[in-house]
C-alpha cells in the first residue's frame, strides 16, 4: 500500500520517515482486516471451494463423500446435456423477466406515477399496503399466496361468488402463479425507488411543457422518463439480481412443481445438492447461478462507477 501512496509523498505534509508511513498504511489497512477476514472465510472461500467441487464427484453420502475424485468437466458436460438444466435456465429467465423486469419494474413505475401529487392520505394508505407486502418475511408471503391460490383458497371462493369456475391455479399455471406472487412481494421496492427519483424531476420543466401543449404522455416520454433513466437502470439491475436468487417463495408455493414446472435454477440446485445428495453437480449449478449473477453485477458496477 506504500507504493500506492507514493505520489502523495511529494506533498510536504507527507514527507515522513518510512516507519511513520508504514504506521499510516497500517492504520488504513488494519480496520479492514476483521471484516475482510470474515468475508474471505465465509464468502470468498466457499466460492473458490465451489469452483473446485464442481470438478469433482463429491457427494453427501456414499463412498465419494469422504474421498471425492477429480472428474474434470464431467459435471459441466452432464449439465449441458441435461434437459432439466436447460429447462430450469429457461424458467429462471421467464421468472426474472416476468416478475422483475416487467412486473415489479413497470408496476412500481406505474404506482409511483399514479401516486405523485395525489392526496397525502391516499399515498399513505396505498403505500402502507404495498410496502406491507414487501416487509413481510418471504416465507409468510409464500404461505399467504399458497392459501390465496389453493383449490379451496380465497381466489376460487371469490370467483365462485361471482358465478365463475375456479381452477387449481398452482397446478394449471404454476409459473404464472409464482411470478404474480413475486410481483406482489417486490413491487414496493421499485415503487419507492421511482417515487424518490420522480420527486427529483423539476416541476417547472413539466409545467412549461404543459403550457406549450405537450400531452401527459409526451411529458412522460420526453421529460420524466429520460430524466429517470439512471434510476431505472440501477433499479432494473438490483431487482434482476434479487429475483435471480429467489428460493423461498417458490419453494413454499410449489416446491418447484408440479413436476418440474417451476424448477428455477436455485430450486434445481437445491434439489441436486440436498435432495439427491450430488454436491458436485449442485456446485456446478451454483457456479452457473454465480456466473449469471456476476455478469449482471459487472454491468451494475459499470453504471455505479461514477459514484465511487
Amino acid at each position, binding site marked *: 500500500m506504500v507504493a500506492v501512496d507514493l505520489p502523495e509523498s511529494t506533498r510536504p505534509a507527507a514527507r515522513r520517515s518510512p516507519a511513520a508511513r508504514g504506521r499510516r498504511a497500517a492504520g488504513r489497512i488494519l480496520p479492514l482486516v476483521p471484516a475482510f477476514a470474515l468475508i474471505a472465510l465465509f464468502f470468498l472461500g466457499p466460492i473458490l471451494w465451489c469452483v473446485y467441487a464442481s470438478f469433482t464427484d463429491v457427494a453427501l453420502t456414499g463412498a465419494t463423500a469422504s474421498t471425492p475424485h477429480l472428474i474434470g468437466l464431467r459435471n459441466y458436460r452432464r449439465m449441458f446435456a441435461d434437459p432439466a438444466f436447460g429447462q430450469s435456465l429457461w424458467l429462471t429467465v421467464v421468472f426474472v423477466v416476468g416478475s422483475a423486469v416487467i412486473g415489479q419494474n413497470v408496476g412500481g413505475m406505474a404506482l409511483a406515477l399514479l401516486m405523485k401529487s395525489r392526496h*397525502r392520505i391516499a399515498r399513505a394508505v396505498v403505500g402502507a399496503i404495498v410496502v406491507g407486502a414487501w416487509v413481510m418475511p418471504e416465507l409468510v408471503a409464500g404461505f399467504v399466496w399458497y392459501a*390465496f391460490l389453493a383449490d379451496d383458497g380465497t381466489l376460487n371462493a371469490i370467483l365462485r361468488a361471482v358465478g365463475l369456475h375456479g381452477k387449481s391455479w398452482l397446478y394449471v399455471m404454476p409459473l404464472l402463479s409464482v411470478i404474480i406472487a413475486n410481483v406482489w412481494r417486490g413491487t414496493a421496492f421499485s415503487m419507492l425507488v421511482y417515487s424518490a427519483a420522480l420527486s427529483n424531476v423539476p416541476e417547472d420543466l413539466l409545467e412549461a411543457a404543459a403550457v406549450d401543449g405537450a400531452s401527459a404522455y409526451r411529458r412522460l416520454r420526453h421529460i420524466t422518463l429520460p430524466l429517470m433513466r439512471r434510476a431505472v437502470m440501477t433499479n432494473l439491475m438490483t431487482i434482476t439480481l434479487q429475483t435471480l436468487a429467489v428460493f423461498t417463495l417458490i419453494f413454499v408455493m410449489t416446491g418447484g412443481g408440479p413436476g418440474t414446472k417451476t424448477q428455477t435454477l436455485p430450486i434445481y440446485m437445491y434439489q441436486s445438492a440436498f435432495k439427491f445428495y450430488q454436491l458436485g453437480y449442485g456446485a456446478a449449478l451454483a457456479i452457473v447461478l454465480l456466473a449469471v449473477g456476476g455478469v449482471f453485477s459487472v454491468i451494475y458496477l459499470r453504471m455505479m462507477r461514477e459514484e465511487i
Partner: protein
Amino acid sequence: MTTAVSATPRTSRPPRLSTTGPRRRAAAAVAYLVLALVAIAFLLPFGWLFLASVSDQASLKADVPHQLTLRNFADVLTGDNLHALANSLVLSLGAAVLTLVLAAPAAYPLSRYTRRFGRPILLGLLFATGLPITAILVPVYGLFVQLELLDSIPATTLFLTATGLPMAIWMMKNFMDEVPIALEEAAWVDGASGFRALLRIVLPLMLPGTTVVFTFTFALTWGNFFVPFILLVDPAKQPASVAIYQYFGLHGTASYGLLAAFSILYSLPVVVLYTLVQRVLGNAFALSGGVKG
C-alpha cells in the same frame, strides 16, 4: 414531502390554463380509482392470514370466522415455538451487532482516505453485493460439513454476517461520507486516535445511518429461511422461519389457524421495526438498499 413544499407557492399563482382543469380532475379521478383497485388487489392475499388467525375453524379460504378467538395465538406460543423465536432473536441480533462492529471500522478508512486507496475495495464490495447468496449455500454446506460446523448457531451467525457485510460496509461508507471531516481533524489535533474519532465523533453523528444498517441486517436475517434451513438441522437450534415451515409440513391441513397465527407473530418484529425506523428516518431505510437513484 416534496409535493407539500411545491404546493405552497402554487396556490399564490393565477389559476391554471382552463383547458387543463377539468381534464386534470378527470385524470385524478381515474388515478384514485386505479390506486383503490391496486390497494384491494394487494390486500386480498393478506385476508386469509388475518381471518384464519382469529378463526376457530380456519381453512385455506379467507372465511369470516364463525367465532372470533385468540386461542390460535395462545396455542401456538408453546415452549418449542417460543424457543424458535428466541433462536431467531439470537441469530438476528448477533448478526446485526457483529455487522456493525465489523463494518464501522472497515468503512472508516474507505470513507476518509484517498479514492485511490478505497476504490478497488469498494468496487469489489459492490460486486459481491450482486452475487446470489442462494448459490453460495451449496459450497458453504460442504465447508460446514468438513469443519463440523453444522448445527452451530455461532457459525451460522458468522456466515449470515459475512454475506451481509459487503452491503453493510458500502452503506456505512456512504453514510460516513455525509459526516464532515473537519470535526475529526479538530479531534486529531487534540491528539485523539483515528479509532477514538470514529467512536466519539463520527458514529454518533451518523446514528441514523447506523440504525438503518442495524435494522437492515436484523430484518434480513430474521426473514432468512434458506440459510438456517440448510445449516441448522437440529430442531432445537432452528429459528422461527424454519420452525414454521416444519410446522406447516407436520400439521398440514389440520391447523391453518395456528399456521396463520404463528406467521403473524413471526412477522410482527420486522414490521414493527420497519415502521419505527420509517417513522423516524423517512425513506432512508428503503433507499439505502444500494440504489441511490
